[in-house]
């Protein structure tokens, strides 16, 4: 195992340990919220994954622009890995938010501005990943993804500002106990670290797959030449 691989593994283990500490803080250290009780603790995960859902799309848009400017497939590997993980975190945002809303508002879902904008973001993730999955040519996939990623990024400001602009039910910046704030901050940092590590690992995997495909194509081409 090379030093670089060991470093990668160490980073991954550290990120997982960090998340474990953060979840432990959320479950055991943070004070219990008076009106909602223990179910409020889902908020620490909800805010963290919501932030990562937005980050994932921002990385996709930047990588899309990178590819369109340079035509280098390395950007597309970033795009794909950020897209997959962003889709998961965006879906988790909706799920955890729904659990919180059921306790706080008495309903699993409400068509209020922030929730609707987040759902639209998740749909855009789905559409982009589905369309890319249907294309075989890597450069075509990267080009289509790049354009759609940049267009879809227009939804990001709407998700962030929806509650302020349209005064929905979603809380903006509620008053919190200082220990709750620290727990939230640790959770956001821990999940961000894990997200960053997973993106780099997935990107590495996609790069290897690309090299493998290129090698296969070259070998098949040579075999055809030698037969003819």
């Amino acid at each position: 195992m090379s030093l670089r691989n060991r470093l990668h593994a160490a980073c991954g283990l550290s990120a997982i340990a960090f998340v474990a500490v953060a979840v432990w803080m959320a479950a055991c250290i943070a004070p219990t919220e008076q009106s909602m009780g223990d179910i409020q603790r889902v908020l620490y995960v909800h805010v963290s994954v919501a932030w990562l859902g937005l980050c994932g799309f921002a990385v996709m848009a930047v990588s899309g622009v990178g590819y369109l400017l340079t035509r280098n497939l390395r950007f597309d590997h970033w795009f794909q890995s950020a897209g997959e993980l962003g889709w998961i975190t965006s879906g988790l945002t909706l799920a955890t938010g729904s659990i919180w809303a059921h306790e706080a508002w008495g309903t699993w879902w409400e068509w209020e501005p922030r929730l609707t904008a987040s759902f639209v973001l998740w749909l855009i993730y789905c559409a982009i990943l589905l369309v890319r999955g249907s294309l075989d040519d890597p450069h075509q996939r990267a080009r289509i993804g790049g354009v759609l990623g940049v267009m879809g990024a227009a939804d990001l400001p709407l998700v962030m500002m929806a509650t302020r602009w349209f005064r929905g039910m979603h809380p903006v910046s509620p008053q919190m106990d200082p220990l709750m704030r620290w727990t939230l901050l640790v959770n956001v940092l821990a999940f961000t670290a894990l997200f960053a590590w997973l993106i780099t690992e997935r990107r590495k995997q996609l790069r290897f797959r690309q090299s493998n495909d290129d090698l296969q194509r070259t070998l098949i081409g040579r075999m055809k030449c030698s037969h003819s």
Partner: protein
Amino acid sequence: MNKVWWVLQKDLVAEFRSLRVWPSMLLLGVVVAMVFGLQMDLLPQQKQRLVGGMLWLAVFFAGMAAIERSFSAERDDACWDGLRLFPVDLSLVFWSKWICNTIALSALEVVLFPLFFALSHVSLLAHPAELLLVTMLGNLGLSAVGTLVSALATSIGRGGNLLMAVVLPLATPVILAAAEATRMIAEDALNQTFWRWVQLLLAFAVVFVTVGTLLFPAAVED
């Protein structure tokens, strides 16, 4: 601007000569409006709440049928190759297609608005200037998204299916904002929130037209 007009004129003349796309778009719009109208056996207040969403969904589904054809028609008989030989910047081709699609959506609404009024008895003309503003901004945003995705879809040869799968989520913020603003016009509730929706429509129109102008050359690569 002259060059945009030339390409736009070519598209409009081709459509008026063949009448292939717009009549089918109008027919689809009327059918969707009829289906919605049949389902609207509701109280007047409930109709006022629903009419915006239904109207804009009808505009979207019928309009996309025309927008999808705006590029796939160019692929027939190598028309697209001829258009690329035309000495203009590709971004100007996007602008002409975008304007043409906006005109198509406007023509559709000229038919659909009175039809919705007749079917639902909800008056949308209490604030005509505001309605015109919302309609214009909604059309500009929708046609910009549709035009760019139509160009993308045509470049990979999987027209309709791909277009509909991608356009709907991308255009949802525009449809939602236009539907909410139209609902507020129908309810005669032009408050601060209404103008927020109008600002949002304007922002999306500007963003999608800018993105379309910049990315169109990349979108139409073979």
